[in-house]
């Protein structure tokens, strides 16, 4: 069983839609949860991170963590064509980035 599971998609939505991206995980020791965005042929870039459970909002993006269900989500409101990318979840325990586990990524296309 993989540490982190993420539906690879692809996911295609019309411009303006609300997008929901999700990951599940198996290790209850994970405390830090991150979402990276990766454009085609580029390196990933950090969008948001949260610590432990709860919600975090940044503009059109909201990250949610439900540790009881071992489930994290990223919501994108009013999606734009520029949001078309692959979204990677990542998570780690207290020990540090040498134990950072990534999901396989969900490829999102926002259609104008």
């Amino acid at each position, binding site marked *: 069983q993989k540490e982190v599971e*993420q539906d690879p998609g692809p996911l295609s939505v019309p411009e303006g839609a609300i997008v929901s991206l999700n990951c599940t995980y198996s290790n209850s020791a994970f405390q830090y949860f*991150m979402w990276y965005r990766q454009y085609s*042929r*580029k390196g990933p870039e950090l969008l948001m991170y949260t610590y432990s459970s709860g919600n975090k909002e940044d503009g059109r993006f909201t990250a949610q963590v439900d540790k009881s269900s071992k489930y994290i989500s990223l919501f994108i409101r009013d999606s734009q064509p520029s949001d078309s990318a692959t979204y990677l979840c990542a998570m780690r325990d*207290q020990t540090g*980035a040498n134990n*950072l586990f990534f999901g*396989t990524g969900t490829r999102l296309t926002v259609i104008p």
Partner: protein
Amino acid sequence: DAGITQSPRHKVTETGTPVTLRCHQTENHRYMYWYRQDPGHGLRLIHYSYGVKDTDKGEVSDGYSVSRSKTEDFLLTLESATSSQTSVYFCAISESPTYNEQFFGPGTRLTVL
């Protein structure tokens, strides 16, 4: 890409040949990481460095070695490349392992025939 360059950006090589990939940073970050990215596996850590001459293994280190003689450079070597090492390789840097943002380079696409 936060002052990180990788070279070469693309490489095609043959099985059994040695290959060295270079990561160069201008941010003066202490921690540097090498990942590989493959369909169905996501990003997996190969090796990382926590200072000059200080390195350690990651999840998928077999067949790879690294060296860091200067803060700004982190080299990844495939001593004898195999087709299973065909992948996209990313270098990343961070100020601290407990800092939640890693900055990634643009990647090197390696094909081993």
